[in-house]
């Protein structure tokens, strides 16, 4: 790059805010909209999905507020049904599925591989615009008379309701392409763009988890696409596939839908597990414990996740034999997750634990994902699932996994890579306060839902029996605490953009390659070819007070610096 010579060199700490970086090397709206730089595409994804998260969160608060009283509080039944549907659809399809892979993964993956970009930069941009297209269709649906089917679109309800199911379903169809393209891109990138010296077992575990995720995205998403297309066809032209009135089979829809949507929960949780593998090692100042078991378990989860979809249908009338098989496979998928939890805990042993915001979120993750995973045992077991199915117990379980797991890990990752992405440090104290509020608010909101569910409170209820009111009130209060926590977290990060200290290249002392370039990185990612080593040998990085960051103490780069 010629302008690298004319712009000032990065500071000694490795901060490049004053020098050339991907944020300032090109300017203007067009340079963003048509960019092929994975970092800029990642940032655009980040802004987009955070906007979706805000929207989905507002729907959630409206739902929780309505549930303050056993009868009407602020809206009628139909509006309530639309609100919980939109909450689910926006959070799942617009936020969590693309959340970690497309926003954080896009930014970090090539950097972790010491690469210039992903394998197919144009496909990467196309994936982003598929997301935008899908989001626009979903918005159109909200304006036309939003869907009231629940995010699962179960037939024949979805084919007979008068709300705008078709545009929402087409939106999800297009969003699916965004997901497939990202997955395809990542698979090729990981196969072809690893640097000299980085074998499969030299890759960071976040890369392993993105690889597992990408396999699911590529293989499962087409099934959802076809299913939703069939649904739209049935609704628009009356072809009988799912509606028994037309000769179809409503349970077939459930099989098709969960064939995607169960693996999809691993699209959500696998990359989250990858983030935790990075942060727990860095902030314990220890090598990750049991690298190979964690890597293999990501792939095991990706494979087994395809074979457990029927556990959503234990009471649907499927045969007992199917129930037994799906229950068994469901328990098998629990094992790799358990291995990871044990390994993360063991990583902290004899470490030097640093309670920075990413680590607070990591510890929250272990706590919440622990509860989420263990309550899965009640639901995987056939006899207890019969009672708990479609109650608040399930709502609590998947929020503990998806929110307590994925969203909390996403926040850990966001706080972890924020200095790298934007070149600024945020206020540690306030970031920790926000993390604490999120933890307290989350548990207040969702723990009581386990109790309600076990007592028999069904989900998706607008009116409920008065005996459940105390639990609902506690849950709603928790959701408000959660909202305050998020606003503080957002405020802390936004504040850092203007007032934050310039971040050094390696503020946390991590050993993965993205920390060897400047913060923020230049467009071409690395000015000097990064030195490939053990991605978890964090102990060779020592704190240097003169730059308020970490420097390498062993290896060729350290020798060159001396």
């Amino acid at each position, binding site marked *: 790059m010629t302008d690298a010579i004319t712009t000032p060199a990065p500071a000694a700490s490795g901060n490049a805010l004053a020098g050339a970086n991907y944020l300032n090397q090109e300017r203007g709206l067009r340079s963003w909209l048509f960019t092929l730089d994975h970092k800029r595409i990642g940032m655009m994804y980040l802004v987009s999905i955070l906007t979706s998260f805000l929207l989905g969160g507002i729907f959630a608060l409206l739902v929780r507020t309505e549930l303050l009283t056993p009868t009407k509080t602020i809206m009628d039944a139909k509006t309530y049904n639309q609100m919980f549907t939109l909450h689910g659809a926006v959070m799942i399809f617009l936020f969590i599925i693309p959340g970690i892979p497309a926003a954080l993964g896009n930014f970090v993956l090539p950097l972790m591989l010491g690469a210039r970009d992903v394998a197919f930069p144009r496909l990467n941009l196309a994936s982003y615009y598929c997301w935008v297209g899908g989001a626009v269709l979903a918005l159109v649906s909200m304006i036309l008379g939003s869907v009231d089917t629940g995010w699962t679109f179960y037939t024949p309800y979805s084919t007979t309701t008068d709300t705008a199911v078709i545009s929402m379903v087409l939106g999800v169809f297009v969003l699916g392409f965004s997901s497939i393209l990202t997955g395809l891109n990542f698979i090729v990138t990981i196969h072809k763009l690893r640097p000299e010296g980085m074998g499969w077992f030299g890759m960071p575990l976040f890369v392993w988890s993105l690889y597992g995720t990408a396999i699911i995205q590529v293989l499962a998403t087409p099934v959802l696409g076809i299913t939703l297309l069939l649904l739209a066809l049935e609704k628009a032209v009356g072809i009988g596939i799912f509606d028994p009135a037309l000769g179809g089979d409503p*349970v077939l829809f459930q099989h098709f839908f969960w064939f995607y949507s169960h693996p999809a929960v691993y699209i959500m949780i696998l990359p989250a597990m990858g983030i935790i593998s990075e942060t727990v090692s860095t902030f314990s100042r220890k090598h990750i*414990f049991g690298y190979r078991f964690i890597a293999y378990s990501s792939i095991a989860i990706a494979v087994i996740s395809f074979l457990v979809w029927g556990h959503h249908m234990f009471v649907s*009338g499927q045969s*007992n034999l199917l129930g037994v098989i799906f229950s068994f496979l469901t328990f098998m998928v629990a094992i790799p997750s358990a291995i990871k939890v044990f*390994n993360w805990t063991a990583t902290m042993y004899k470490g030097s634990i640093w309670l920075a915001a990413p680590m607070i979120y990591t510890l929250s993750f272990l706590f919440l994902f622990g509860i989420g995973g263990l309550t899965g045992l009640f639901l*995987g077991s056939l006899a207890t699932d*019969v009672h708990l199915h479609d109650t608040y117990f399930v709502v609590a379980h998947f929020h503990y996994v998806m929110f307590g797991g994925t969203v909390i890990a996403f926040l850990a990752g966001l706080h972890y890579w924020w200095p790298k992405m934007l070149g600024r440090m945020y206020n540690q104290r306030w970031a920790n306060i926000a993390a604490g509020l999120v933890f307290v608010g989350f548990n207040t909101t969702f723990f009581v839902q386990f109790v309600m569910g076990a007592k028999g409170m069904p989900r998706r209820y607008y009116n409920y029996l008065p005996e459940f009111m105390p639990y609902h009130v506690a849950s709603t209060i928790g959701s408000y605490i959660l909202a305050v926590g998020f606003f503080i977290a957002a405020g802390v990060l936004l504040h850092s953009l203007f007032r934050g200290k310039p971040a050094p290249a390696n503020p946390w002392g991590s050993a993965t390659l993205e920390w060897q370039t400047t913060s923020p990185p230049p467009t071409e990612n690395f000015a000097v070819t990064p030195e490939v080593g053990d991605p978890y040998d964090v102990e060779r990085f020592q704190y240097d007070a003169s730059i308020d960051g970490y420097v390498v103490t062993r290896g060729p780069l350290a020798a060159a610096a001396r």
Partner: protein
Amino acid sequence: MPPAATATAGDVDTLFHFILGISAAFFLLIVGLMVLFVFRYHRGRAARPAPSSSHNTALELTWTIIPLILVVVIFGWGVRVFLDINTVPADAYEVQVTGQKWKWFFTYPNGHVDENLHVPVHRPVRLVMTSEDVIHSFFVPAFRIKRDVLPGRYTKLWFEATRSGEFQVFCAEYCGAGHSDMLAQVIVHEPGGFEKWLEQEANVLAKLPPAEAGARLYKMRGCAQCHSVDGKAGIGPTFLGLVGEPVPLQTGGPVSADENYIRESILEPQAKLVAGFQPVMPTYKGRLKDQEITAIISYLKTLQKAH
């Protein structure tokens, strides 16, 4: 968990508490270690990490195999109880269950249809269930049973109540605006009480004047879910002041709501749709007898607007 009221509910609860015990133990182990490590190895106390191995195959295999054994136990136990829940005893008393937005109907062997499920205590009861429209799910928390109710096929469920009383029925599969109002009660009668009740109910319509019988049918057979009698439009038009008045149709032109129009609208709801309403009403052909329709019409005639 609500107090158990069937023969199998206790088995489900035992398993539930077994899983709860295992979960609590693992949770306390993980969180306990986590808290201990954070406290013991906080960088305020441990400025530098101490050397320790970064993997240990024996240890890792241990924490793979022990959970594996435990989940296989939970799996096997769950299957055993599940099969008990799903294996219907041969001598069970059969009741037909129909789900329809947003009401349950229970049809007894003598033809009586009720809005609540009445059963004798200590006798296995078999439910044969189907839906008139979308998917519903029959859920009785006190019995720990649940099964989806599908259009176009039959699903089955059984239970044996071990004590008398009233137990809540919920619809557990989302089915639209009135989903959370699709409630009913299971009324478990003392020995001998059920037969007496059924005998009495079977003859009640014949003993009542038609308009009163119609009012009862209006409430019991699902008309009330969509048609009000106070003038407010719901999912369907109100019944207040309907008989004899002109009704605007979607196809244009009003029609007079006489006896024949009402009869036709009950048997073929989509034939003459009232303007401004969706074609969502299921047919009652084969579900209401002629004299029941006559009784409903007599009742509608009593619903005149106050002048």
